[in-house]
């Protein structure tokens, strides 16, 4: 019998090198210098989820993004009939929920851990705190967030045009 999430979050050991290697590959945190990554890593919240534990639900007010440190996460939405439609699966080094860094708008999908998973959370409250403590670092993160969201928006526009073209 393993420890549940309540206890595992108290007895946590941070693997600094592993955290750094993951953060460097996240588009939001690329081009950050080593001391900036150190400062950023201190703002992260390490959370453990056991298999089949819900990370967040669709339409729940969003608080921030998560980065997969280990394990597997399923992102899915519920259809009108109430069935689950899987959108993607995320593994170590992937990230999700970054739109919630901007505002408290409801989550557009649900996330659940498919196996015992460790996530690093970076939340809006932490970003706002970082704006006071290191405005330059916060600006870099916001700039990269804008780039990521801009790319997604362009891709969505392209997909919409294709659908319209196919419909015609």
């Amino acid at each position, binding site marked *: 019998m393993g420890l549940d999430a309540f206890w595992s979050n108290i007895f946590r050991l941070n693997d600094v090198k592993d955290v750094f290697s993951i953060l460097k590959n996240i588009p939001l945190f690329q081009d950050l210098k080593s001391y900036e990554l150190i400062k950023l890593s*201190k703002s992260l919240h390490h959370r453990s989820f056991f298999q089949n534990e819900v990370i967040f639900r669709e339409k729940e007010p969003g608080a921030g993004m998560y980065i997969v440190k280990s394990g597997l996460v399923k992102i899915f939405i519920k259809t009108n009939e109430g069935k689950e439609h899987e959108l993607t699966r995320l593994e170590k080094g992937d990230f999700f929920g970054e739109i919630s860094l901007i505002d408290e708008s409801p989550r557009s999908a649900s996330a659940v851990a498919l196996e015992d998973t460790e996530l690093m959370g970076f939340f809006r409250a932490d970003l706002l705190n970082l704006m006071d403590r290191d405005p330059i670092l916060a600006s870099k993160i916001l700039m990269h967030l804008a780039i990521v969201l801009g790319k997604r928006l362009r891709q969505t526009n392209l997909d919409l045009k294709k659908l319209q073209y196919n419909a015609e």
Partner: protein
Amino acid sequence: MPNNLSAKSQPLFSPMQKIILGICIGALIIYGLYLSQILMLPFLISLILAYLLSPLVDRLEFVFKKRVIAVFVLYFFFFGIVGLGLMVWLPKIINEVTALTINAPAYSQKIETLKTELKTEVEQKYPLIKNMQGFDKLEILTKKFAKEFSFTTMMISIVSIISSISLVPFILFIFLIEGNEIKKTALGLIPNRYFEMILNLTHKISSQLGGYLRAMLIESIILSVLASLFLLALGVDYALIIGGLTGFANLIPYVGPFTAAIPALIVFYLKMKTFNAILIIVAGFCALQFIDNMIIQPIIYSQSIDIHPLIVLCAVILGGTYGGLWGMFLAVPMVGILKVICKELLKEFRFRRQMALEADETMS
């Protein structure tokens, strides 16, 4: 949504066991706080100062790159400025306090004589007041009011705060350097299901509380300076002490400003012995309140707690009833915190109710 849990990840405690464990731990914490109540005042003062000084330390951390250096620089300047201020103003304040202590019995005697003369004069002119025992009833009310909000009570409160100050620099140092890590560790204990909600809640409470405390401090300093200058210009004795008390008393809504005016009224009237002295003090304090309400507060409190004045009044009355002076001082920030908590809980409740409704619709 799959509900089956893997065998190796079964929870250690059932929900009921967790609730009972939580209640036991909560009771132990409260008992521990009760036993260590001697430490509560320095911790509370350090926490308030940490809220006040954190934004400044954040700015300094950006300049010096290391938070420890930022805190040391702050301490150096703070103790330097405070030391300089004390060197200049402390002798004057000590002289005023000494003079006030020596003259206090004489002031009491003069007030008693004045009261007796006024009572005899009014009861001779208006026998109805004598029949109704108006003055005796007024005296009972005044004594009750004076006991709660007297100059002595305020001075005793200030002295008890000063006696705890020796621990504050050390506790504050830890809070300023490790405050974020302490908060993060505490948040690490929250179960995943409630983590995001409580993280949001603590952030909003911190921002509101910090902003409100900073606004209160700035307002108190400005009012203390203005009141001291006004009283010094008039030549009122003990101008610095009364001016300082005006700023401190103003922290208590509705009651504070009037309380601060009373010692100024008594001291100036006993010096000048004219009715004009009372008028000048009343007019001056009314002008101070006007400046405070119309100019200072709108500028300083623009992003602070937004609470209806009626709720503020009720909170102050309840705070005073159950907590005395400290209750009245803490009433408004506590109501602000409650407001934030209620808003977040309402949002969470609405979301969960919507989830339950959608689940019912799917099943039907």
